[in-house]
């Protein structure tokens, strides 16, 4: 028997790769990226992802506004960003090519679905001639693959419509990329079996398309090389991949469990925070109550009402939602009740760009309430760090009887990375410390703990502690209505001192300065941690000396922050806003920090921050 000789394919070792899948919002690019991510996680690479999609659910097909993409960076070593520029772009149509090609470095691999490159589709996005033929892509390694027609052909035997067959082309592409990078495929097959359990024919067709993509890679001459990226050496332990929103949800469940308080989430759907509501609504077995309210105000109101009753009240929002909640957050400040407010920041003002990231709610979180209304503010720095941030917020909210704002962002919310699953015992315990009995002659709902300045949390149902709270100024101690000028001044200062005092209860700001000789400090907060860290590594690799610190607590600042700021002759503060942290630092410490501010709805690139830091070092 004669057989065709299998082409002998080279296997090349790489230390890291950045892949971007791009297509129409209906092409399933997010799903494809998610699956590739899971395969990569299971293989043991370190990874970081960046989904980027329009707010429109199905923008007109084949247009630039309809392009959805998913970028994944994976490596055989510890990485901190989803990568500046893709080494591989999968473009499912001309719009996806046009929207993404400018990000490709010379020599990148470009996998193009040629079936979609009709004259009409090209014209729709303004291509006068086909870029596949006019030489404009000569600097890339172009792999022209008729993905759609090959998928349809591979699925001829199945009893499904042509439309369903065409829709499986993303699985064909996933199969091809899985071959190209030696990804394990079992989990994707299992995933498809579960996803389409109720539609067996569609399930079999999708699995077949996935396998056809893999086989195509093995046999085609278009790909002469495949790549291996060895597993990363991460600390031993059990890992899973986790997004920021998922980590926040798990952190809240954990906080409920560690405090013994039932979690009550009041929420109104809003991009990109809704997934926290979706996730928490699955965890009723933990006693988690989720309340989809009529609006943002009712959502936070119900959460505060639940807190009054002894629940861990939580509300989640983004963008304009945080503005709507301001009044109730201030009521939480006045009544001194625990409350967790999660703001997954997105590009503003107003509706802004709902699916794009930004860090421009910092000043609103700090000051966006009437009166002197201090609120602790915490910002997670990576997707998996959202888990710990949620628990820390709960700890502070409960211990100090105060609303706490968590500032996540769209980049952290949807991005994902491997997470070493912590043991439950290692998580902090949170003690509600409810008031249970009258101390002294009468119950004083605003008598403060001398150390924390927190007031008693006496919940309804506790005999003898009946009391009234509200937004009107209260007399120190008794909590009775008071318009006394000296009392108001005292209460304003007590509420401020309570929040300021949390600085004694949080870790000092850690500085990473391996040489100990740096003049320049780069100081960030929140979701820019990955890009700043990658930039700092590059500067150091090139021989530069730079110190790095990253703020998790924005209010109060860590106790040593002034000392850190004064230890360096120049301080660079990169932010995805017009300089909000910089304003706080200058105002409070009279340190003339150097801002670097870009507000494009995109995360920073490591390369741009590298240049910024290097310029400051050189200057």
């Amino acid at each position, binding site marked *: 028997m004669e057989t065709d000789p299998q082409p002998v394919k080279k296997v090349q070792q790489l230390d890291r790769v950045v892949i971007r899948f791009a297509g129409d919002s209906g092409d399933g690019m997010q799903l494809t990226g998610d699956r590739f991510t899971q395969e990569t996680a299971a293989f043991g690479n370190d990874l970081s992802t960046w989904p980027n999609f329009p707010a429109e659910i199905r923008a007109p097909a084949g247009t630039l506004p309809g392009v959805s993409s998913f970028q994944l960076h994976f490596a055989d070593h510890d990485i901190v960003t989803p990568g500046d520029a893709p080494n591989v772009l999968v473009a499912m149509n001309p719009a996806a090519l046009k929207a993404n090609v400018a990000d490709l470095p010379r020599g990148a691999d470009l996998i193009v679905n040629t079936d979609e490159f009709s004259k009409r589709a090209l014209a729709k996005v303004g291509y006068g001639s086909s870029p596949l033929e006019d030489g404009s892509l000569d600097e890339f390694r172009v792999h022209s693959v008729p993905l759609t027609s090959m998928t349809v052909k591979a699925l001829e035997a199945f009893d499904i419509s042509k439309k369903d067959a065409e829709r499986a082309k993303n699985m064909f592409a996933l199969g091809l990329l899985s071959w190209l990078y030696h990804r394990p495929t079992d989990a994707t097959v299992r995933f498809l079996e579960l996803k389409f359990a109720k539609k067996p024919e569609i399930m079999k067709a999708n699995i077949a398309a996935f396998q056809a993509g893999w086989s195509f890679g093995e046999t085609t001459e278009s790909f002469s090389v495949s790549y291996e990226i060895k597993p990363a050496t991460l600390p031993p332990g*059990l890992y899973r991949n986790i997004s920021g929103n998922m980590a926040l949800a798990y952190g809240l469940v954990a906080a409920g469990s560690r405090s013994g308080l039932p979690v009550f989430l009041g929420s109104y759907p809003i991009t990109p925070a809704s997934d926290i509501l979706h996730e928490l609504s699955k965890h009723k*077995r933990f006693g988690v109550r989720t309340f989809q309210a009529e609006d943002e105000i*009712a959502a936070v109101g*119900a959460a505060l009402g*639940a807190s009054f009753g002894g629940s861990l009240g939580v509300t989640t929002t983004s963008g304009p939602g945080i503005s709507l909640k301001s009044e109730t957050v201030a009521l939480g400040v006045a009544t001194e009740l625990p409350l967790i407010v999660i703001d997954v920041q997105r590009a503003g003002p107003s509706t802004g760009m709902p699916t794009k990231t930004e860090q421009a709610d910092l000043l609103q979180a700090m000051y966006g309430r009437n009166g002197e209304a201090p609120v602790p503010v915490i910002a997670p720095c990576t997707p998996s760090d959202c888990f710990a941030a949620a628990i820390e917020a709960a700890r502070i909210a409960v211990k100090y009887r105060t609303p706490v704002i968590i500032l996540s962002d769209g980049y952290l919310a949807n991005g994902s990375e491997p997470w070493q699953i912590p043991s439950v015992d290692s998580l902090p315990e949170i003690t509600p410390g409810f008031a249970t009995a009258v101390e002294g002659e009468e119950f004083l709902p605003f008598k403060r703990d001398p150390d924390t300045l927190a007031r008693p949390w006496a919940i*309804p149902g506790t005999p003898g502690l*009946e009391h*009234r709270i509200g937004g*009107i100024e209260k007399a120190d101690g008794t909590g009775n209505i008071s318009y006394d000028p000296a009392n108001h001044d005292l209460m304003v200062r007590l509420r401020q001192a309570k929040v300021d005092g949390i600085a004694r209860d949080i870790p000092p700001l850690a500085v990473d300065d391996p040489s100990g000789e740096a003049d320049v400090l780069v100081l960030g907060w929140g979701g820019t941690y990955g890009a700043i860290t990658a930039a700092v590594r590059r500067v150091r690799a090139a021989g530069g000396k730079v110190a790095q610190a990253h703020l998790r607590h924005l209010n109060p600042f860590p106790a040593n922050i002034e000392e850190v700021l004064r230890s360096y002759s120049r301080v660079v503060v990169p932010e995805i806003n017009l300089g909000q942290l910089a304003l706080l630092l200058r105002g409070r410490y009279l340190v003339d920090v150097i801002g670097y501010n870009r507000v494009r709805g995109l995360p920073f690139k490591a390369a741009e921050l590298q240049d910024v830091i290097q310029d400051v070092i050189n200057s």
Partner: protein
Amino acid sequence: MSDPLALVPKDPEPQKAKDFKTDQEVRWCPGCGDYAILAAVQGFLPELGLKRENVVFISGIGCSSRFPYYMNTYGFHSIHGRAPAIATGLASSRPDLSVWVITGDGDALSIGGNHLIHSLRRNVNLKILLFNNRIYGLTKGQYSPTSEVGKITKSTPMGSLDSPFNPISLAIGAEASFIARTIDSDRKHLQGVLRAAAQHNGTSLVEIYQNCNIFNDDAFAPLKDPQQRDDITIRLEHGQPIIFGADHDKALRRNTAGSIEVVPADTPGILVHDAHSEDPSLAFALSRLDSPSFDHTPIGIYRQIQRPTYNELMREQLDEAIAQKGPGDLADLLASGDTWRID
């Protein structure tokens, strides 16, 4: 009929009205209708025999919303219009509490209109007392969403332009399961309505006509005037023919167009009040009898139907989730999904 207070602990000792009074000086204007309502509530609560610590009053902003400070229970004086939302969070997480919302016409129907209609449709176990004085009192006399058209106030020197809400009609439209109206000055009627509201499982809306003697005095004068009141007040009682008038000589009948007309009491086919009817059209037609001139005004329970409460359904979902898969285990949750081990 399930008892909304079944899970609320009872006080073994008999209670008195004074048990519900606080040491706080009541700061409403002398002569305000709120005093009568406060006394009626304090006087009626001992009948329920609930432990005081399991009773909560939550209010918004306005004159009436000072109410919780004067009740020796747990209390929360919140922000303008939001009391139903805050109370929803409390009532749906604490089945052992009797939760009351105190609000006014501006608080409930203007700034808080959204929360009112949604709490009514959700049917959370809340008792909402809406003090309707048809004026803004605490801000010193602007017209409210229940003021009559053309109202001359500080903010409307040439008369207000917008049509008022009819709170009863609004509540019916919002699918409320318990809707009643009563009057501050009629203590017996007020307490009867409160009793029924407290025992209703779900959201109870009680509109209380309340006189603001400073900014809108005598807004409900015809209903209080001994000369007129019996002729124009229609006392709705479930299962009873709707007959009214000082001489019991008037009755209501539905005409062929579906609306309600006043006829002599001996006319065939007069209406029998059915507050329990699933069909809200009778209650709605009754609510449309209101007029600015108070030609005839129904008071009492317009509608009282049984339907599932949000808080019970929420609790059932939690129980069901646990019954199906057992209580949640945090370690299992964190390690769920695709995981891998690095040695």
